[in-house]
């Protein structure tokens, strides 16, 4: 049983999707969805613990040995990302009962959960696989499901946003496919470890460099690295609340994971940072993006849109840290990947609570909510503090390690960019808090009750996780350190 965990994690979600369509009854489908996500989360945690104690797990699909067969391979980083993705799905599940009932047509609820499970399948499969073409297929499965999920938002602008996302996402995916083609024509293999073994002797060829460029640009589109981020604000603002929270915490993170795989597993640190100019370009691009997007976020009037721009800024941090190419940078990047999933998950869920009660997330509509929805507002306050990087929250740990990793490289200019962008984060978080607590409620506003417990509990679970991982970093940075070591070739 344990031996089959890598494939069970993926197949359980995949089988759940058609089951949802067959069952149809909204409440039963929700129960099924919850059961599936919770069992996947349990399997992912088991797998992570197994990998931490015994080293990477390899699984030959159908018994065909690699490199001929497709291989699933879960190392510490893979197990960590599987845990993040399935954990987020499990947290979102109880929340979705009320939120989805309100935001999605009753006739479509079973389809909504089926598509959500397909998105989960794609994200998990992409993380578990050790075959680069297989990764492309799972990437497209998750992307296609995501386009559909975004288009299910109530506002008709959700449709346009979903279509724009589809166009840019498909271009990104196809770029990734072109990159794989160049790698295959150069090496004759698609297995990531096999590629890593064969590629070094061909690294001076232009084919390899072009492959690297296509893979990097394609993935940058998928993870919304500035300036390839244009699809993200619309997609996150108009999607149903559950989808915004789930995507913000997982989809771009998994694309970032795939980028780490390409940089460190397939090409290897020596190549990506020796022969190719990654360290000279990406950190600057990432941080400039973080600065620009934080600035744009300050002027947003829609709460979800504001958080979406902030997400792009945070992705900039992750890419910057990872593309320094040092162990400290990689640890900071992987740690921030986890911490950012916690904080954005918490914030988007809290904003979803507001949308559930007052039906709008425009800043002027949330005036004075701090008194009328105290728990939701407090969740936004703590989540925002974590986003800014206040001490005692997970965000502080991320920022601290990011800055020290950059300082170790002596890049003072980049540190200045981070600090400026953090100050801008203070500005936009303060703006939200000001509207929540310091303004009076609009006169004649209908009375508002606090959000239901089934929505508050998951939100607060993530908020408390932010505080927990701000105090005890064994579960986040401890694992991230091991994952970084594994990527850099030292056995974890």
């Amino acid at each position, binding site marked *: 049983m344990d031996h089959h965990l890598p494939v069970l994690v993926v197949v359980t979600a995949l089988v759940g999707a058609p089951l949802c369509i067959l069952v149809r009854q909204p409440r039963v489908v929700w129960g099924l969805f919850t059961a599936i996500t919770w069992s996947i989360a349990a399997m992912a945690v088991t797998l992570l613990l197994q990998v931490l104690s015994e080293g990477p797990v390899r699984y030959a699909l159908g018994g065909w040995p690699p490199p001929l067969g497709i291989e699933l391979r879960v190392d510490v980083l893979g197990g960590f990302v599987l845990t993040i993705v399935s954990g987020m799905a499990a947290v979102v599940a109880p929340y979705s009962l009320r939120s989805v009932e309100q935001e999605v047509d009753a006739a479509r609820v079973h389809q909504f959960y089926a598509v959500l499970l397909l998105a989960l399948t794609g994200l998990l499969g992409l993380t578990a696989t050790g075959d680069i073409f297989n990764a492309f297929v799972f990437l497209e499965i998750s992307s296609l499901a995501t*386009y559909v999920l975004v288009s299910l938002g109530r506002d008709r602008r959700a449709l346009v946003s979903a279509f724009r996302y589809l166009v840019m996402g498909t271009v990104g995916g196809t770029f990734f*496919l*072109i990159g794989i*083609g160049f790698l295959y024509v150069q090496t004759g293999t698609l297995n990531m470890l096999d590629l890593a073994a064969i590629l070094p002797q061909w690294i001076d060829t232009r084919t390899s460099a072009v492959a690297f460029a296509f893979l990097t640009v394609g993935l940058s589109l998928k993870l919304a690295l500035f300036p390839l981020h244009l699809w993200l604000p619309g997609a996150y603002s108009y999607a149903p609340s559950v989808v915004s929270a789930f995507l913000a915490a997982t989809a771009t993170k998994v694309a970032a994971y795939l980028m780490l795989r390409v940089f460190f597993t397939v090409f290897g640190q020596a190549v990506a940072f020796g022969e190719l100019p990654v360290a000279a370009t990406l950190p600057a691009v990432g941080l400039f993006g973080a600065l620009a997007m934080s600035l744009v976020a300050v002027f947003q009037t829609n709460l979800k849109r504001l958080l979406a721009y902030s997400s792009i800024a945070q992705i900039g941090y992750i890419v910057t840290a990872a593309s320094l190419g040092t162990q400290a940078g990689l640890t900071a990047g992987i740690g921030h990947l986890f911490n950012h999933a916690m904080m954005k998950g918490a914030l988007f869920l809290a904003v979803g609570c507001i949308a559930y009660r007052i039906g709008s997330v425009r800043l002027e509509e949330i005036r004075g909510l701090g008194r009328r929805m105290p728990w939701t507002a407090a969740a936004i306050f703590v989540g925002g503090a974590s986003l800014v990087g206040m001490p005692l929250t997970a965000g502080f740990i991320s920022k601290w390690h990011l800055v020290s990793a950059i300082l170790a490289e002596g890049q003072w200019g980049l540190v200045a960019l981070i600090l400026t962008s953090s100050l801008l984060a203070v500005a936009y978080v303060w703006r939200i808090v000001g509207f929540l607590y310091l303004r009076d409620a609009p006169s004649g506003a209908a009375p508002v009750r606090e959000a239901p417990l089934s929505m508050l509990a998951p939100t607060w679970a993530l908020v408390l996780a932010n505080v927990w991982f701000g105090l005890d970093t064994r579960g986040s940075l401890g694992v991230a350190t091991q994952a970084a070591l594994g990527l850099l070739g030292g056995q974890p």
Partner: protein
Amino acid sequence: MSILAHYNDWAVIVLMMAGLYIVISTRSFLKKVVGLNLFQTSVIIFYISMANVTGAAAPIVTEPVDAADYANPLPHVLMLTAIVVGVATTAVGLGILVRIHEAYGTVEEDEIVRHDFDS
């Protein structure tokens, strides 16, 4: 001569750039889907032409023989998957367009932006 010898690559490049140009330049959502299709098709040709071995036969093998006599079948199989992905993308794209048409009465980006958009 050496430029013409790579005619398959030129076909790929022309199709790819034409597709990408359509996606970027047109203001009609429907034409963007067509452009995406063209773009994806160019990648399929790229894979298929790299599987070719000069003078080789189709890879239908009944008994053990020299692999160099046959074209590489793996890219063909990969492209079957990529075609499925492409068809699925087109289907989802067109499905969203039908709903955009129901909601706005048009699939022209300019008119939709005029209807309601801050972005």
